[in-house]
């Protein structure tokens, strides 16, 4: 038997990505994470982590940020992704008029920069300038209005919803792309079988796009645990009120780069980053090894 020849093309396909990525992301990033093992005075082993998790000064902030982050993620999973899937499912109905218009319109917020998003939502939700209050007034719900962004109970949820508003386009587009790859004739067969509308979605389309849903879940997870900008531009690095909107990203930023009079602490910052990285890594590995390998894929 002849030996299988070495498949050089695999290396060729991987090389450019691996090289650029390793040189410009992995080396700098892991060089930075490495700082977590050091302090001003030199090598500290895992003591930075002990401080992070053991010293109430740090650990309270850490757990607060982690808890907020989990909530932030939960909202995205419960609101953003279902809406995104719903919109994609509707948009993908064959022969829907104006589909491209809707799709573009719904995607527009995703294009906006955080500066604008932060500004406009603060403007809308501001108790002062009257957009939200007067709109609620118009439907007789003025009483419901509260300065949501300023209250500890509602600020995080409000921001999460703003983020959902901004990013719903992402799951929508991914799912839409996945739905497009389902052959029309399979849908036609379903149609002949009397399977239309939602049952078509549940019984035919959804099982076929499960991998894409897996992807948006994991992207949401990763994205949320790395989120930073929206909170930073709308609530500042101190993620007010009273750290109610502090998530790991803002906590990390404050620590790593410093803020106002607080000098950056690259070592503790790197420790937080490492902790975040590990949390995300565990999530991603659970997905990659626990779920992704079990997902069936169908070729069209």
């Amino acid at each position: 038997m002849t030996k299988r020849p070495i498949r050089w093309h695999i290396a060729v396909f991987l090389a450019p990505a691996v090289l650029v990525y390793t040189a410009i992301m992995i080396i700098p990033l892991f060089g930075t994470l490495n700082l977590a093992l050091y302090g001003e005075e030199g090598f500290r082993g895992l003591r930075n982590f002990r401080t992070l998790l053991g010293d109430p000064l740090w650990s309270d902030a850490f757990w607060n940020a982690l808890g907020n982050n989990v909530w932030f993620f939960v909202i995205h999973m419960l609101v953003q992704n279902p809406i995104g899937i719903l919109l994609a499912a509707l948009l993908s109905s064959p022969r829907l008029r104006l589909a491209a218009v809707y799709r573009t319109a719904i995607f527009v917020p995703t294009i906006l920069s955080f500066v604008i998003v932060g500004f406009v939502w603060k403007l809308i939700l501001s108790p002062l300038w009257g957009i939200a209050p007067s709109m609620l007034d118009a439907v007789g719900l003025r009483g419901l209005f509260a300065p949501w962004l300023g209250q500890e109970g509602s600020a995080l949820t409000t921001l999460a919803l703003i983020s959902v508003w901004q990013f719903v386009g992402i799951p929508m587009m991914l799912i839409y792309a996945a739905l497009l790859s389902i052959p029309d004739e399979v849908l036609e067969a379903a149609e002949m079988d009397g399977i239309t509308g939602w049952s078509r979605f549940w019984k035919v389309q959804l099982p076929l796009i499960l991998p894409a849903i897996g992807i948006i879940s994991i992207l949401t997870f990763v994205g949320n645990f790395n989120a930073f900008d929206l909170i930073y531009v709308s609530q500042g690095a101190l993620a007010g009120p009273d750290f109610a909107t502090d998530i790991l990203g803002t906590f990390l930023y404050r620590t790593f780069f410093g803020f106002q009079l607080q000098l950056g602490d690259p070592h503790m910052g790197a420790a937080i980053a490492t902790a975040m990285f590990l949390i995300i890594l565990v999530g991603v590995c659970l997905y990659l090894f626990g779920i992704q390998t079990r997902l069936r894929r169908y070729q069209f």
Partner: protein
Amino acid sequence: QEPVTLTIESWRNDDLAIWNDVIIPAFEAQHPDINVEFAPTAPAEYNAALNSKLQAGSAGDIITCRPFDASLELFNNGQLADLSDLPAMANFSDVAKSAWQTDDASATFCVPMASVIHGFIYNRTAFEELGLEEPTTVDEFFAVLDAIQEDGTYIPMAMGTNDQWEAATMGYQNIGPNYWKGEEGRQALISGTQKLTDPQWVQPYEQLARWKDYLGDGFEAQTYPDSQNLFTLGRAAIFPAGSWEISVFTPQIAGAFEMGAFPPPVPAEGDTCYISDHTDIGIGMNAATPNPEAARTFLDWVGSPEFANLYGNALPGFFPLSNAEVTLEDPLAQEFISWRDECESTIRSTYAILSRGTPNLENETWNASANVIRGTETPADAAARLQQGLDSWYTPAQQ
């Protein structure tokens, strides 16, 4: 000889036009061999961006200095050059220089540029309309607020807690020095003879807690720009301010109403008044600059009375720190600076030394001030928490 180009790192986007139109031409006229380029960064990104660039060696020649520890750290890292021997340093008082010196004052690494003074700006037209006078004591102050509240035309005071720093800087640091007696209290805190839980440190919080009722509807979500807009649109009567607002408000109000200013009211009639006259901007030299000569030439000029005049008048509300006599043209700026004569000056209590550790006293103060105003934390609790945080890393004896 090739003209050298000096690049200035700054967080003052706001001043871009002033530098390009007024200051740089004035300098270049005298030094044709030196080009100066003002390259500001958005303030929120400044520290992080500057630190990264300094570390990697791509920062500009001239560095605009934040006061106290941020710059001290750069100096200690060898990233800011020692400017103690710069001739223009003689033009500055020790107090002015203290923000950019080592703790033992042996080295000065930035030329002081400007300070900002806190106080209250008010809508004079509204006051006249309601027949109100500038308050001088706390009781008068609240009487005025009550009167405005009663009338209902205006929101008594424009302040929100969303951005937190507004509450700390324009609230706590504004009214506080009257309670802790300025420098006396600040030094005592540093030396450990006073605690944040002492009455003089808690009382400002107690006053802040009373402000809540006079702030606009939904002040919890009100941001600093919202407050500014409330005031400049004429919807609020009083704005707890920093002097920098002068150059912001004047063009925005554009004559729609008259502004006035009063210093923080004193607790009791006849008390000495204290103002926060905070050293805020300095300017130094990147130790790694390839053009140290030109940079020093430039910095020396920045220390000159000529610069002080140019700058102080171009940016009313940023008061030159130079000993030189500066005549300010803006009436409101004059009003603010006149308080230097009536009251004792001090700097913000948290800036020097006390914000070196974690938790950071300044950041904690933001949080506490906002919490106290919102009523989610009592003044005593807030003070206790701050002191506890400070104790966790700061031992005055070390000083």
